[in-house]
Structure formats: C-alpha cells, structure tokens
C-alpha cells in the first residue's frame, strides 16, 4: 500500500538581484509504501532538503502534488491540513538548532501534545512524555534536561521523540546522523531501525552518506541538481549502480579497510555546477566520463533498465536497453 506519493514535484526559486531561477526540485516523482524506507542520496545542492520540505509541506511546490494516504495535501483546508500533517513528521540534522534552548525535553514534548490536543490532561500528557522518552531510550529524569545539558545523541533522541509524539505514519529524516560522532551514529541508526519495525513507520531517509543509506533503506533514489537520476531497490542502486554519477558517489565512500583498492584517486572531477545556471542536456555531462554528443543537448528521462530499477542516462539506456 502506498502511503506517500509525490507526482512531478517542482520547486523554483528566483535568485535575488538577478533574472535567474533555481530549479531546486525539478520534476521529482516518488512513492513510499507503508513500512518502507526510501533512501534519498545526493550531495549539496541536489535538492534533497528542499524535497523534504515540500513533502512535509513546510514549503509549497511550484507545481506537482504530494499525496498522503491518497489525499492531495494541496487541496485541503487549513484545519484538515493540520490533521493530515500530523501523519508526516520531519527530523532535522542538527537537533541543537531545532530544539528551543530554554525548554526542557519534557516541556518540548508536552507542548507538542498540547498543541495537537493529545494525551488528555496535564497528568496524561506527563505520562505520555515519559512513554515517549522511554521509546527513544531516555530515562524519565531526562524530561527536566535543557538542550545544552544533553549530548548530541541525546538531543537527536529528543528530536525523534518529538516527531513520534503525534503518532505519525511517515517520518522524514533529513541527515539525522551527519552531525554525530561515529559511535553515536550507530546508536541512532539502530534506534531508527527498531522504531520502524516496532511502530510500522515509513521513512524517507535523506542523506549524503551512501553507507548509512545502504544500511537502512529498502529502496534508494539518487538525486543530482534537482532530479532523480537513478532509483530502485537498495542492493541494485548502491551495489550495482548504473548511472555514472551513482558510480562516482559509491566509489567515493571511504571503505574501512586499508587492503581495499589501489591508489587513492578522485572518483569524479569537478564540482556540482551552480544550480541557477545548470549545464544543458544531461546536467551531469560536464563531469561525466561517458558523455557523448546527445548528453550535451538532450535531457535524459528516467527509464526502466532492470526490474524496478530506473536510470536517467543516454549511454546506460543505449547499452543496457529497457528491461
């Protein structure tokens, strides 16, 4: 059953002081099944964080639709929207920036419950706060702590508890472990996996970290300059990538083993171009080792290459053909 669907989402921003337009999200469609984790991987400027904001309706798309449980979020009245919005929650990269520095964990969670009329009276809310803290592995006494009295991992646990407070169906995780130390990352990744399984949650897991996306996702989409360039089952996309950009991304992932690989080399040259002045044709062509004439002029569309595995690349489409 599909719980979240995006249809041809576009988000354009004017660049201040210029005539330029940035296509931050440029025609992205995706669907998320109940209980599934969709990994979205890409680097700075690929549009993954804008996509997250569109999916939770923190921003309005320029065009396209977001359907939650089959309901178009754009068609709803404010009140219905608030009800519906509860079902989808966002967890941010930097829990420090997203928590009010003057509110204790208990106040932060209690406030979310009160705003949504959840948990009953003050006593009921307190019981629910303790329950939420317990779900994310924090002791009750934690409800008295202020953000600066918590470690990075503890703050992220509170951020997750806040998302869970409204009983969501879908959680959007925007780089949830990127700001954390290596050993703390492991804890949070394990917690996310366990909550998904226990509560039947669906995740959109947005990250630049291919290793973490591989670890948690059922399906993976790779974004480059506002578009999805490759999408499919995690094993296909991460371990048998076809798009040259996914290959470069995969190759750049540090492997914790000195015995692997030969000389350390750059996996791709150049940097992501200015999204306000994207290259013609396939936007990856200036950095692509496979680029040929068509890539300079024609923008490739996502096509089915292997079962459930879509790739937007002229060369791959020619050499591997449709499935």
């Amino acid at each position, binding site marked *: 059953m599909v719980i979240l669907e995006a249809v041809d989402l576009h988000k354009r921003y004017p660049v201040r002081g210029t005539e330029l337009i940035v296509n931050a999200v440029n025609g992205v469609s995706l669907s998320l099944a109940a209980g599934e984790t969709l990994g979205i991987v890409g*680097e*700075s400027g690929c549009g993954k964080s804008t996509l997250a904001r569109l999916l939770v309706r923190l921003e309005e798309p320029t065009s396209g639709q977001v359907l939650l449980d089959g309901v178009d979020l754009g068609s709803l009245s404010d009140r219905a929207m608030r009800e519906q919005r509860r079902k989808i929650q966002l967890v941010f990269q930097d829990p420090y920036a997203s928590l009010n520095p003057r509110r204790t964990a208990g106040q932060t969670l209690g406030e979310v419950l009160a705003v949504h009329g959840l948990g009953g009276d003050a006593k009921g809310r307190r019981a629910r706060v303790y329950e939420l803290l317990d779900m994310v592995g924090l002791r009750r006494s934690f409800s008295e702590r202020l953000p600066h009295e918590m*470690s*990075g*991992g503890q703050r992220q646990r509170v951020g997750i508890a806040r998302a869970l407070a409204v009983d969501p169906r879908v959680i959007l995780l925007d780089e949830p472990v990127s700001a954390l*130390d*290596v*050993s*703390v*990352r*492991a*804890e949070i*990744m*394990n917690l996310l*996996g*366990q909550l998904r399984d226990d509560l039947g949650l669906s995740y959109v897991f947005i990250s*630049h*970290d*291919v*290793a*973490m996306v*591989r*670890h*948690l996702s059922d399906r993976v989409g790779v974004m480059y300059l506002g578009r999805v360039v490759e999408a499919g089952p995690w*094993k296909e996309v991460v371990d048998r990538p076809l798009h040259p950009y996914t290959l*470069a*991304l995969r*190759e*750049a*992932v*540090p*492997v*914790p*083993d*000195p*015995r*692997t*690989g030969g000389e*350390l*080399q*750059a*996996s*791709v*040259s150049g*940097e*992501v171009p200015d999204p306000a002045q994207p290259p013609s044709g396939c936007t990856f062509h200036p950095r692509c080792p496979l680029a040929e004439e068509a890539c300079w002029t024609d923008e490739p569309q996502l096509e089915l290459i292997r079962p459930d595995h879509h790739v937007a690349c002229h060369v791959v489409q020619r050499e591997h053909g449709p499935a």
Partner: protein
Amino acid sequence: MTEPLLQIEDLVVTLGARTGDHDIVHGISLRVQPGETLGVVGESGSGKTLTMLAVMRLLSPPLAMSRGSIRLEGEDLAALSESEMRGVRGRKVAMVYQDPMTSLNPLMRVGDQVIEAMTAHGVDDDEARRRALETMARVELPDPERTSRAYPHELSGGMRQRALIATALANDPTLLIADEPTTALDVTIQRQILALVKHLSDEFHMTTVWVTHDLGVIARLVDRVVVMYGGYIVEDAPVDQIFHAPQHPYTKRLLASLPNPADDSRPPLAQIPGRPPLPSESIEGCPFRPRCQEAIESCLTLPSLEPRLEGAVACWVPPERWG
C-alpha cells in the same frame, strides 16, 4: 633509528589555570618519523585537536600546555620566543582545518593570502606572486590567475579547502597537520581532497598527520594510526593491524560501529554503551573502563601504553579474553 621529525613527550593540556583545573590531555607521548603519514583518530573530546594545537603552540587561555615537551626536528618548541615560533609555524609545520571559511580571511583575495603566507616568511613580493600561482595550480584550483582574485565567499567549499591547502603548502612545510579537512565536504569532493593531499605529500616527501573522528576516511591514507580516548592514547599501531587486528577494545568497538559495505544482511550496528568522559569527570584507572565490556579488576589501575604485536596498546585485558 632516525631522529623523529616530531616528538611529543608527556604532554598535558589543562583547561583553566585556577584551582579545580581539569586535564584534557593526560601526559601523552608520540613520535612521527620523517616521511611518515600518521592518522590520529578519536571522537569529540578525545584530545586529538588540542594535541595538534599544542604542537602549533596555538592553545589559548583557558587552555594551556601544563607539562611535557614538544620537539620538531629536535628543537624544543616551548623554548622558542613567540616571534621564533611564528617563523616555525607555516614554514616548518602547517595546519589545515576543518572549516576553511573560518581560517581564510574573508576580506582578502585568496591569491593574496597565499602570497602573504610566503612574504610573512621573508620571500620577496615578486617571487611570492610567482610561486603563489604555482602553488594554486598544484592544488588543482582551476584557472589560478582568475581564482587568485576571488574572495573566499565566491568559492565553493571544495575550492576554499584547496585555497587553504595552498596557503598551508606555500612554504613547503616539513610537517602538515590536516585536522578533519574534509568533514564538512560532500563525499565526492572529500575524495578529491584526500587524493590531492596524499598525492602532494608523496610527491614532496611531506610528513603528514591526519586528524579525524572517522576511521574509514584514513584507512587508505596513512601508515600508522594513533587512537585517542578521553585524553589518552589507547592504541598506536600500523594501519593494517589497527583495522585487521585491533588490540584495544575501544578501537575494536569503533570499527564495529561502522556499517560493513559488504554485508547484505545489514545487522544492527555495534554500539558502545555509555558516553565518553567529560573533562570534569575523573575516572579511576583506564578511561574506557566504564564503557568496556571486557573490563577486569586490574582496569581500576591506569594502564600504560605497552608494546604488543607491531604496535602498542594501553589495556590490561589479554586479547585472548575478548578475541
């Protein structure tokens, strides 16, 4: 045995200069041989960055080096006057930091900053101007002439990091300290920078120390790894041994917390229970003891770094107990 290029003996770094002062680095000793590439690994609060700042003599109050000695090419750095130290800094030993935006001068063109790095050490203007362009080409900044006229904010993160590396390399330092230089960068750019610095240090026989929290990043970069925890060196060994036969339980746990890119079953990541000690805490015996699953009674006494296999380890527990 040749004389070490860098020799740190019994270094103590203290926070605060009054009663109740806390030691953050607890008497560590470390040698770096000429031409060697060393990785210093540790999480937040391990003391890795403070150790390197002590080498640069850049600790500022309330932090201070309260004991020990640091010798560079046999010269005791503590004995130098501040002006003599300025002659060493940048010329003999240079440091590249995580965030180039805070270490480059935002009001100065990047070319001028590379030039200034040289004129500060007595290179005349014309010579510095010529060599600056060479250095910028060497770090693969595109169109050095044009890039040299750019201000830091006009460059991408990767370009800024290259510019910072150019200022560090301007005087052909004998020792380069790279402190998390790629943490803030995208993975493909991270790989480009790692490959670049490795290539340059090989080509110019520059001794390099990589400081990082991420073991994966240095696996293919370094000859030897020093693992720091809670202000102590807990293990010091050749890179292959660190990854394939770690001798300290912390090293072993840290490695296990990384997702294995070859494991399709994607088991939960190994966690390290508890959290690293705060500088204000004093732990009896081994600093890792409260989190160590192997701890025995002897661990209530502080272990010293003792030779084992090809390296050294500070741990009382015989490896056959936790193998």
